[in-house]
């Protein structure tokens, strides 16, 4: 041992010193993180204060908060926020209802429960792109299964994505299909944490089913429901892939969520600085929501203790 240590000298020995081993091991990860994430993040933050266009060779000039002012006063941006809000709220409500009902179902023991549970959880594990493609094909007027089934009754092709309401519904259904199992998992965790003897006590005390639910079950799941709402709101707020694939924001711009609009501004119209500013506004909103979420997580932990 002493021998090998002696033969190494200079920079190599300095680098391989046990003191530096930890830093050396994490260095590649830190480097990649910095190059791929942190640097672009800072860079785009800087860009949001200039009038830079990625498609032009002009030297950018400093514009201060002009881009932020432009974005916040833009009527189209507010429209996109409204569209996003409609999609987020309807999708989250749908996920809550379906997830909750499924959790009630899976809280009971029935034949093949494990297998059914596994199947129900699969949508959550698929990639956004494949879910988007699935639903685009489902909704397809000529060959899609939705149109095919409805054809039996109406003898007409069914074009779900033709109207603004239909297109929003189509996106909401796809998103809810994918994420209701997540809400179900959270609620199920709450349901199974209720001690059985509480239900027995309620049975002895001759409480109605309704009273039993509100007195015993609901307190155990309410903080988890709040977590589910916040988490799904944050995620759905950033919804891009599914919308982009199913409707591409159409018809017109009626299903263009803020994320899709952001993408268009940045990579179709190349208003790079303006889109950076918008991205930071979105980031700010997400940070606020995330903090609410963390607050709820902490409260839940205190309750459990």
């Amino acid at each position, binding site marked *: 041992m002493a021998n090998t240590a002696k033969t190494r000298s200079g920079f190599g020995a300095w680098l391989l010193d046990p003191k530096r081993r930890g830093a050396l091991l994490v260095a590649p990860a830190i480097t990649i993180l910095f190059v791929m994430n942190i640097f672009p993040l800072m860079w785009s933050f800087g860009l949001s204060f200039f009038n830079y266009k990625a498609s032009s060779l002009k030297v950018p000039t400093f514009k201060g908060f002009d881009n932020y002012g432009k974005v916040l006063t833009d009527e189209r941006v507010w429209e996109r926020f409204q569209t996003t809000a409609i999609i987020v709220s309807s999708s989250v409500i749908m996920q809550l209802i379906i997830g909750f009902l499924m959790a009630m179902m899976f809280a009971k023991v029935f034949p093949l429960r494990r297998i059914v549970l596994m199947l129900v959880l699969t949508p959550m594990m698929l990639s956004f792109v494949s879910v988007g493609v699935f639903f685009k094909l489902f909704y397809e007027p000529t060959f899609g299964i939705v149109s095919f089934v409805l054809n039996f009754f109406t003898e007409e092709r069914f074009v779900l994505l033709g109207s603004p309401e239909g297109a929003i519904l189509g996106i909401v259904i796809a998103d809810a299909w994918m994420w209701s199992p997540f809400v179900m998992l959270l609620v199920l965790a709450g349901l199974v944490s209720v*001690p059985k*003897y*509480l239900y027995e*006590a309620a*049975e*002895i*005390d*001759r*409480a109605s089913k309704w009273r039993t639910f509100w007195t015993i079950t609901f307190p155990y799941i309410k903080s988890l429901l709040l977590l589910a709402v916040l988490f799904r709101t944050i995620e759905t707020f950033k919804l891009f892939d599914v919308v982009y694939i199913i409707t591409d924001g159409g018809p017109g711009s009626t299903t263009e969520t803020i994320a899709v609009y952001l993408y268009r501004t940045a990579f179709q119209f190349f208003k790079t600085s303006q889109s950076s500013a918008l991205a930071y506004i979105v980031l700010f909103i997400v940070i606020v929501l995330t903090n609410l979420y963390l607050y709820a997580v902490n409260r839940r932990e205190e309750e459990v203790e």
Partner: protein
Amino acid sequence: MTIELKKLTKRFGALTAVDSVDLTVGDGEVLCLLGPSGCGKTTTLRMVAGLELASEGEVYLGGKNVSDRAARDRNVAMSFQFYALYPSLTVAENLAFPLYGEGLSKTEIEVRVARISDTLQLGGILNRTPGQLAEGEKQRVAVGRSIIRDPTCFLFDEPLSRLDVQLREEMRGEIKLVLQDLSRPTVIVTHDQLEALTMADRIAVMRDGRIEQVDTPHNVFQRPKNLFVAGFIGTPQMNLLTATLTASNGANAEFAISGGQTIMIDVDPRISELSPGTDVTLGVRPRNLEISNEPTPDGISTTIDIVEPMGAETLVHLSDGQHVLRLVTDWRVPLNEGDKVHTRFLPGTTHIFTADEQVLRTP
């Protein structure tokens, strides 16, 4: 109102948890189901409550066969081992909870809650939630919630098992006081014999799903029906010695204790049913042994192994070479480990158990 169990049996798969139990609890009577863990006492209680349905046999509450009814249709009151207080409700709401189904007016509910909180001294904590209560307070609320209604019977599952020793003694007295006022049959499940001996009018000792003996606390202690009850009830445990009957005259008998010593003691007249040469087990409680300086015919010679002072009394572990005997004596008696002493069996205190583990005694 009475509780009557007829041939009550519960099977879980191949396991028979409760095996053909017959039991009657009278109006206002307190019966303790006592036994080691896993003996089926809690399952029996849950079958009375209706939380488990019997595999066989019947449950009669107030003369009515309720065997097939769910718990909510049996009108029983029960307090659970883990209290089962509703965590989201305050103490007052917990107490009032069983009354919501009764169709009482709000004022009537308030009056009853006030009465119970007076009885159990819960006045100061009515607005707290169970999470903010100490163990003893939780226990009192659980008892309060179970006695607020007028049910057909009261059931308590290990009511004191989660309290520390001091609190347990305090609550034992309190619960006994509350139970005296209840004019309904009451069943208490416990594994703590002191709890059973102090609170019960009668004790049912259970083992492996069967009832071994049902009797008053006094009789369960003084007149155990078999070897299991004799060994289970009483601390320190009863001394059990294997022996062979050598001679008897109807009132006195001589036994050869395994190990070589002989002893001559007065016995129950039923000894005449046994012929000399029969193997028996002699049982004598530690407080019915006495140290004597001289060898006596009703004693054996022993060596002191361990001396454990317990305050007012001293517990002595003795050995006759074959058995370990426990003896309790006054703390003033001077004893040294390693000393050879003679141990007398006090007259009229030895129980004789035959090979089938049943006691030999005139009923």
